[in-house]
């Protein structure tokens, strides 16, 4: 039976009413009585020693409340920021995690590094005072490029990290791969740059810290994807306050894409300093600060080789990657190019053996961490670029080479050589679906037509797989994670039958208030309008690990379902008592409880009322109808699919027009198809952005960030895209009660390889991302 506003329905979003009327409450919209304004003085150099900081003129400037430096934080026992995932090198040694102070103490290591925190009555006064701070720097030679950082004689970013190495890690069977290559009929090799990008959620990061001397409690409002994790880090590692004296609130958050997972220096400093000044402090990044300090994504240099037999079957895969960590290790940085990357190098294929090694390096750049897809886009980029190149090398249609090598739908569970166990999927189906959607067979005719107009047309595919719904706590713990990756929920009936759902997931555009309400509407038969979803406040929500890695529905939604199951269990007992039957005879369907074989029934609303007004109630049962659940997933989920891009290039201008896009994705069961489609659109757009337009550029010599504003960093606009064709197939995920897989990152994972393969097809040669018109024009001239 399908339920109104239940599972599988494209319900319009609850949250939209406040956003379309201008009533959203984003962080900068919140103001507190007596609030001051914070501003950071930042390093103008990529690498420098701080010889002296003279605050005397600034401290007496108009409106200045106080100014803090790294020495003040150290003196107060405040620690630095930490990385929460330990990676061991090949030789067993732990990764190098140099100190990461919130405010620099003796050196600055990237342009934008925090040097001092000025608190003043107005923002303008704080900025004016910053100009009066006299810092005596000794500039040092810097390094920003990851390959240069690995070279002998490169500037040393950290004393602790010899050769700038954070770790040198490996996975897979080197000997088996070497043997496979010896027996190969054909070997394809490729060198790829996965360009550094800036996530750019449209709401800049911000923080509002306050301290209540009466209760000794700090409150931090912050633009976070995971407020409980921020509280844990601030308490256990930074030492601002114990968890019970620290409340973290993430209100409406204007996009995250990974960059708001991490604990940053700014919010940490703002909440700590609020006690020192005895007044609330607000800090809001301007866009330039976002470019300088929001953790960047990607930045890999990779060499890969794939061995094939005479029939085009894969024999082995060898990958060597250098990953840029930036100047410090951000919260989950170490895991991204290892367990979120190399474990997906198997793609959708039967690969007998894989060997990958990843060297992570420090440079004088903004730290790099998870950005939409986090490691999996980088893996897909390598696998799908080399598959397409191999097909061309072997004179095969690239989709045929893939179809020949796909893991077959009856082969699950399928263990890959890089520790993943794929649970379900149908890769041939998503591939053929995408080909039909874009009329793959009609491409030759379209290409001829373009050619007649002097244009170059190309088509390219990307058959991606990701592991999301992270993750089983024991599994990630054994791989070095410092946290558990369960999720929590509470489903609380109010006496009048409405429901409040508390979730540890956090919505910053994903529409959880709608999707999660659909779960309850379906499972407990409560009208959609009577369900409120609460998230983003450590005092309201029991606990939570937050939203990233496409985990909210698979893990957070499963926790809600588990709590709803407990509600049903208890409601059955109450119903049995009220209807004078045995609990075993009570049947439940979408909130209606009936006695089997009779017409006696009660609704969940009636039962909730009885639970809170327990005049006629089972003697051995607690009153109330509210249940908590924690859910720890059994496995990752494995969304997969094929995206096919079609482009037309004007060889005279180098402009690439994305003329068509087909996305066939297997997300398992879908709760709200409208929202899922929207997630695919957004992900694909970010992937196209990376491939075509975006790229963080540092000046080689000075280490200055050259792409520090929207004037220089090319954000995709409406006229850069076609309409997207989006379809889903469904092999339900067997490892969670909802059968769902996760859809938030798929587009960003699939898109760059598909687009670059299409551009390669059109040009007949390979170029690196981003395929700017200048690069494409040059390639077209020399074609």
């Amino acid at each position, binding site marked *: 039976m399908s339920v109104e506003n239940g599972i599988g329905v494209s319900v319009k979003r609850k949250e939209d009413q*406040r*956003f379309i009327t*201008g009533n959203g409450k984003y962080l900068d919209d919140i103001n507190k009585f007596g609030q001051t304004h914070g501003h950071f003085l930042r390093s103008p150099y990529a690498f420098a020693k701080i010889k002296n900081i003279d605050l005397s003129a600034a401290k007496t400037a108009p409106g200045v409340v106080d100014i803090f430096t790294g020495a003040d934080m150290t003196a107060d026992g405040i620690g630095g920021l930490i990385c929460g995932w330990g990676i061991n090198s090949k030789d067993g040694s732990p990764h190098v995690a140099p100190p990461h102070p919130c405010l620099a103490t003796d050196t600055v290591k990237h342009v934008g590094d925090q040097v001092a925190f000025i608190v003043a009555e107005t923002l303008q006064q704080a900025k004016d005072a910053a100009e009066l701070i006299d810092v005596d720097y000794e500039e040092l030679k810097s390094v920003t490029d990851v390959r240069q950082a690995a070279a002998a004689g490169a500037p040393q970013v950290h004393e602790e990290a010899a050769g700038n190495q954070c770790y040198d890690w490996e996975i897979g069977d080197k000997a088996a791969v070497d043997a496979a290559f010896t027996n190969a009929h054909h070997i394809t090799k490729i060198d790829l740059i996965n360009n550094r990008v800036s996530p750019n959620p449209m709401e800049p990061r911000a923080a509002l810290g306050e301290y209540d001397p009466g209760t000794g409690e700090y409150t931090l409002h912050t633009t976070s994807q995971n407020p409980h994790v921020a509280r844990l880090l601030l308490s256990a590692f930074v030492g601002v306050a114990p968890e019970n004296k620290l409340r973290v609130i993430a209100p409406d958050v204007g996009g995250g894409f990974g960059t708001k997972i991490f604990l940053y220096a700014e919010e940490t400093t703002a909440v700590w300093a609020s006690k020192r000044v005895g007044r609330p402090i607000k800090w809001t990044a301007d866009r330039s600060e976002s470019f300088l300090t929001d953790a960047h994504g990607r930045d890999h240099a990779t060499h890969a080789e794939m061995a094939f037999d005479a029939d085009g079957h894969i024999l082995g895969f060898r990958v060597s990657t250098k990953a840029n960590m930036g100047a410090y290790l951000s919260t989950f940085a170490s895991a991204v190019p290892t367990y979120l990357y190399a474990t997906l190098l198997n793609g959708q294929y039967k690969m007998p053996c894989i060997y990958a090694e990843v060297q992570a390096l420090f440079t004088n750049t903004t730290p790099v961490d998870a950005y939409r897809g986090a490691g999996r886009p980088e893996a897909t980029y390598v696998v799908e670029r080399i598959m397409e190149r191999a097909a061309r090398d072997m004179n095969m249609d690239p989709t045929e080479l893939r179809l020949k090598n796909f893991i077959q739908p009856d082969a699950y569970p399928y263990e890959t050589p890089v520790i993943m166990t794929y649970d379900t999927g149908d890769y041939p189906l998503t591939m053929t679906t995408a080909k039909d959607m874009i009329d793959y067979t009609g491409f030759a005719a379209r290409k001829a037509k373009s050619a007649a107009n002097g244009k170059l047309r190309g088509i390219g595919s990307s058959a991606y797989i990701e592991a999301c719904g992270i993750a089983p706590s024991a599994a990630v713990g054994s791989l070095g994670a410092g946290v558990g990756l369960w999720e929590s929920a509470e489903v609380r009936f109010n006496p009048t039958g409405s429901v409040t759902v508390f979730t540890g997931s956090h919505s910053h555009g*994903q529409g959880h208030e709608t999707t999660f309400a659909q779960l309850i509407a379906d499972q407990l038969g409560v009208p959609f309008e009577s369900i409120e979803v609460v998230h983003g406040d450590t005092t309201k929500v029991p606990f939570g690990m937050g939203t990233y890695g496409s985990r909210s529905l698979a893990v957070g939604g499963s926790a809600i379902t588990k709590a709803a199951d407990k509600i049903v269990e208890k409601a059955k007992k109450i119903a049995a008592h009220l209807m004078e039957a045995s609990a075993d005879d009570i049947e439940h369907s979408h909130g209606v409880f009936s006695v089997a074989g009779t017409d006696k029934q009660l609704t969940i609303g009636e039962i909730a009322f009885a639970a809170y007004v327990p005049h006629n109630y089972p003697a051995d049962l607690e009153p109330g109808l509210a249940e908590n659940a924690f859910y720890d997933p059994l496995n990752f989920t494995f969304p997969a699919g094929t995206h096919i891009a079609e482009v037309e290039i004007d060889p005279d201008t180098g402009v690439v027009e994305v003329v068509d896009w087909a996305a066939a994705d297997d997300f398992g069961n879908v709760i709200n198809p409208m929202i899922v489609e929207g997630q695919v659109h957004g992900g694909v757009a970010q992937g196209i952005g990376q491939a075509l337009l975006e790229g963080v550029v540092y000046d080689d010599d000075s280490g200055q960030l050259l792409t520090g504003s929207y004037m220089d960093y090319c954000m995709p606009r409406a006229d850069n895209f076609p309409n997207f064709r989006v379809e889903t197939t469904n092999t339900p995920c067997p490892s969670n009660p909802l059968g769902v897989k996760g859809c938030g990152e798929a587009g960003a994972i699939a898109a760059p390889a598909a687009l670059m393969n299409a551009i390669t097809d059109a040009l007949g040669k390979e170029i690196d991302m981003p395929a700017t018109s200048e690069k494409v024009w040059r390639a077209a001239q020399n074609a």
Partner: protein
Amino acid sequence: MTSVSMTVNGKSVNADVEPNTLLVQFIRENLRLTGTHVGCDTSQCGACTVHVNGDSVKSCTMLAVQADGSDVTTIEGLASGDDLHPMQTAFRENHGLQCGFCTPGMIMSAVDLVKRNPNPTEETIRKELEGNICRCTGYHNIVKSVKDASEKMGG
């Protein structure tokens, strides 16, 4: 300090402001109308778009004193009471927003776009929205929303 007076969402307002106060600061900080957002510092993103005398304007590119005597409409003033503007409804109906941060500016630009192009093609919509950045939606459903609204607005 300079004194400014204008009509905002049908109400007349006066205040003394610093001469360098931007219109967006005046709207957000003096009037506490926080539906108008700030997404950049180079007048590129369009999150701050409002109407000044009926035309869409990036309120971060205008000083409050330049708007002296004007009639300003922000996202909070677009609906008539509980009746949403067709553009607002279309954004909800077509899932034209995700995080919602770009949305007020996007809607204000779109209303102006349809006023100038009563029956816009998809291409026109994409071109006209060039000054508004959305990071979430890939624009697909924004374009659909604007098209839908233009039809409902009797284009």
